């Protein structure tokens, strides 16, 4: 009797603690959506659809991890999606020039990392606002992609790439495994290494971090480089998925990457947050668009629904001080 009471009491205390909602908003939101969509359409939770959703969320998940690192230092990377486009075009060009798949992957990775590094140096050393630097990079990267590709898609035919995009173990596609691996690595780096502590400290307060001897300039450069590199990896998965390198703008990826990080309870002022939160945020956004399409909701209502969910979930995190 007393035991159950204390459990009930503990649950009540947990649920009323504001930080619970900040941390778990994306998970709660995802669960609510899953319940809702499953009630409306039983195919939502079918193995095929779960696999489809995981497949569709892999690229966003990888971008979100990079974005989370940047936002944890109180920065923002508006160029992630364009850097991905740029890296995808570089990948396509490398493939058409017969570099082979491994070398081409390296080219994509380095292309992303290079732009990220440049962003970081301009923000940290050049002391230009992150917003402006990455906004400039957004335009410059997509412009370069258009120039290099002459505005046309580059068809990339490769059996191993196709296998990568189509294969899965059970309901878990290979691409999602890669995304998950990156997420786990990122979590470990953030919470189990000195570097991670420094990232969080830099985001919490640059002055305080510097006072304790943390080289915040290096940390800032590093997070943008991480974001760029991950965009490079995402580019490979993007090309594998559609079978071509497209110079398309991919703006939805940018908006969703920021939305997922905020949904995941990462403070835009930096210093507070997790990796798992944003990952669930990414899954939530993917599940939302999947469910709406599955239910046959009109194309005109979908952007509205996404907006309502993003703001609604952010509402849950408003207790954050």
């Amino acid at each position, binding site marked *: 009797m007393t035991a159950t009471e204390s459990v009930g009491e503990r649950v009540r205390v947990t649920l009323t603690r504001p930080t619970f909602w900040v941390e778990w908003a994306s998970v709660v939101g995802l669960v609510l959506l899953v319940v809702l969509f499953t009630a409306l*359409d039983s*195919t939502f939770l*079918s193995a*095929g*659809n779960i696999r*489809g959703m995981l*497949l*569709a969320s892999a*690229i966003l998940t990888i971008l979100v991890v990079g974005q989370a690192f940047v936002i944890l230092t*109180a920065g923002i990377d*508006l160029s992630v999606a364009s850097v991905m486009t740029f890296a995808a075009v570089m990948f396509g060009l490398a493939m058409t020039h017969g570099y082979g798949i491994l070398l081409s992957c390296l080219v994509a990775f380095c292309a992303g990392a290079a732009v990220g590094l440049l962003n970081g140096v301009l923000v940290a050393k050049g002391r230009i*606002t*992150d*917003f*402006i630097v990455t*906004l*400039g990079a957004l*335009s410059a990267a997509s412009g370069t992609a*258009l120039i290099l590709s002459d*505005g*046309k*898609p580059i068809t990339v035919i490769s059996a191993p790439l196709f296998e990568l995009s*189509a294969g899965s173990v059970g309901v878990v596609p290979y691409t999602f495994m890669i995304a998950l691996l990156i997420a786990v690595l990122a979590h470990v780096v953030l919470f189990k290494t000195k570097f991670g502590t420094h990232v969080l400290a830099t985001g919490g*307060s640059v*002055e305080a971090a510097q006072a304790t001897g943390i080289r915040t300039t290096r940390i800032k450069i590093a997070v943008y480089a991480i974001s760029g590199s991950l965009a490079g990896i995402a580019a490979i998965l*993007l090309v594998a*998925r*559609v*079978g*071509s390198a*497209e110079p*398309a*703008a*991919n703006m*939805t990826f940018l908006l969703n990457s920021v939305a997922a990080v905020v949904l995941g309870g990462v403070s*835009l*002022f*930096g210093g507070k947050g997790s990796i798992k939160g944003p990952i669930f945020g990414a899954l939530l956004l993917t599940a939302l*668009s*999947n469910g709406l*399409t*599955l*239910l*046959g909701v*009109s*194309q*005109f209502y*979908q*952007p509205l629904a996404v907006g309502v969910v993003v703001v609604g979930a952010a509402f849950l995190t408003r207790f954050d001080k």
Partner: protein
Amino acid sequence: MTGAERRRSRWVGGMALACGLSLMLSACGGDSAAPSAGDGEAGGDAKIGVVIKGLDNPFFQHMEDGIEAAAEDSGVEYTIQAAASITDTSGQADKLSNLANQDYDCYVVNPISGTNLVQGIAQIAAKDKTIVNIDNPVEAEAAKAADATIATYIGTDNLAAGKMVADQLATLAPEGGDVATVGGVAGDVTSAQRIDGFKEGLSQDFTVVQEVAADWNRQEAQTQAETILRANPELAAFFVANDDMAMGVARAVAAADRKGETLVVSVDGIDGVASGDIDAAVAQYPFVVGKMGMQACEAAAAGHELPAKVDTPIELITPENAKEAQEAFPEPPSDYENPFADLLEG
């Protein structure tokens, strides 16, 4: 707390700056890519100013190619300006206004919307210069308000293209069934016309069970098509509003092991039909639209009366003629009527 507030104000300031900058970018971003004057042997009679839509879409790249090819043929002097993107309505209006102030004998305009170029058109009309309207029509009301007469309209009929796809689908799948449509950006006029034409042309054996917007993006189209196939595993066909998205949809169909059972038909997509990914397509020829636009100006300068409206060819592409169409591209594989070329020759 103060630290957070300071950072917040920095955030707001950054946001304001960002908005300002993005406005600037969209207003003047196209300039760097746009101007490319003709290599001017000055052999033609007219000086032509051209304003077209954004070159971020292959359709308009082909149109530009057509314009340049025609100018090269006749040696006419011309300037071509493109909008920064296919949504940059105000930037495009600024570009036409700039050209209108300069001394051109004839203007070729492809407005993003039916009304966004009205100011520039009014300026041109006041100087009594020829206006040739290509691709997207200037709204009749707007032209009247600008006191302008459009000398000729040259375009490709998106409704007719959609209808032709529907007819071919009826031939390929006489038993009918459920179909889904994949459009461009939600609310886009071209996409809506192609889809409306397709739906109008569909026989009663078919039911449209779903319409999605995939932002002219291959990845997005593929993801949406995969989801639709899960909701409707027995789907008879996808109608896709352009070639690039159709390739993504084809991949989704192949991944669901429905190739041959769920057909993929589209507007544009010669290469996709040739490679066997797309089952049938109707090709439009923006190259011809651009070329005819220039020839119309030249014919007007030579004192000819222009026909009020000219439809550029559309062509049904099947696996049988895809190779031929590929070789003929950017021109159609079969002969077509070109009244302006006739005027110039005659």
